[in-house]
């Protein structure tokens, strides 16, 4: 059992009894390794996510031990499955209720682009109504693919600047989707 790889420390200054690095990096590390997921599952991708949460694939290894079914205490919204246009306001409401910082993963073809449901009643990708950070391809994706998507999101979270959510660019992004922001 000696081939266990420990996570790399962020770049910093190390000496006897101390280690100094930037606050951004420390917070990023903490956030990335405790992403509380909010599953928004409507169809078969949700079944794959159940396998991902289960003991075989064990999403908890990545610090996502606690699936939150309240948007207010979660960081990572996982949208899995076909989102009908009638469901769109509900999904948007869930996203708006999440506290900052919040991230979104679109799992599977339907959440990403509408998938095979190219029709008047289905949203052609959730990025029509909320900003998306990571897209996981597949129909449905295997649990490995969902895990890989979450690890790519961890990379984003680790490298996100602490100030990002207060920038005018971020505010403009949210306003593009018609979401009110309270930072000036």
């Amino acid at each position: 059992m000696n081939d266990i790889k420990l996570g790399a420390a962020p770049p910093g200054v190390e000496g006897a009894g101390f280690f100094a690095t930037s606050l951004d990096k420390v917070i990023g590390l903490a956030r990335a390794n405790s992403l509380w997921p909010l599953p928004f599952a409507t169809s078969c991708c949700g079944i794959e996510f159940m396998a991902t949460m289960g003991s075989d694939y064990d999403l908890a290894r990545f610090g996502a031990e606690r699936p939150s079914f309240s948007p207010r205490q979660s960081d990572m919204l996982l949208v899995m499955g076909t989102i009908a246009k009638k469901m769109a306001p509900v999904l948007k409401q869930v996203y708006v209720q999440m506290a900052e910082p919040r991230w979104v993963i679109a799992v599977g073809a339907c959440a990403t682009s509408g998938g095979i449901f190219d029709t008047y009643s289905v949203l052609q990708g959730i990025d029509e109504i909320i900003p998306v950070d990571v897209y996981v391809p597949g129909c449905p994706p295997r649990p490995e693919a969902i895990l890989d998507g979450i690890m790519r999101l961890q990379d984003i979270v680790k490298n996100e600047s602490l100030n990002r959510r207060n920038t005018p660019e971020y505010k403009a992004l949210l306003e593009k989707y018609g979401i009110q922001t309270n930072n000036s």
Partner: protein
Amino acid sequence: MDKLDNNILLLRLQERFGEVIQNQDIPYGLLTLETDEEHIIEVLEFLKKDEELQFIYLTDITAVHYPEKELSIAVVYHLHSFVNNIRIRLKVYINGVNPEIPSATVLWKGANWMERETYDFFGIQFLGHPDLNRILNVDDMVAFPMRKEFPLEDPNRVDKKDYFFGR
């Protein structure tokens, strides 16, 4: 009394309504008749309340759009007589520009949602319906998606554009 079959049923309807019943056909053993919007409620009421026929169950109300026909919307009623174990289909062709037909909610409360659905997808006005609004589609939809003039696909779809396929 003989067991009620399509022929007896057709005779009963013809003797009661005569010329109002047209174009009778029996595709796949299901008696299919046409009538018009003035008489449809009368015909339905007769089928439901006649002591012998007893078509007490309204299976479905739906519609079909035939853009090439002059009367381009067909409203279709399916009835079922549990007592006689027989079904019947009634069609009413109405004009597609301003489709209007009396509501069957006066006979069956269950017609309420069926007519709302038919309105939702075809834009047919059911006169006398207590609450005719959309039931399945989003409320702010402007199209009646099952009518042929509205595209079935979503216009926002980007990954099926021709230039991705060299067309």
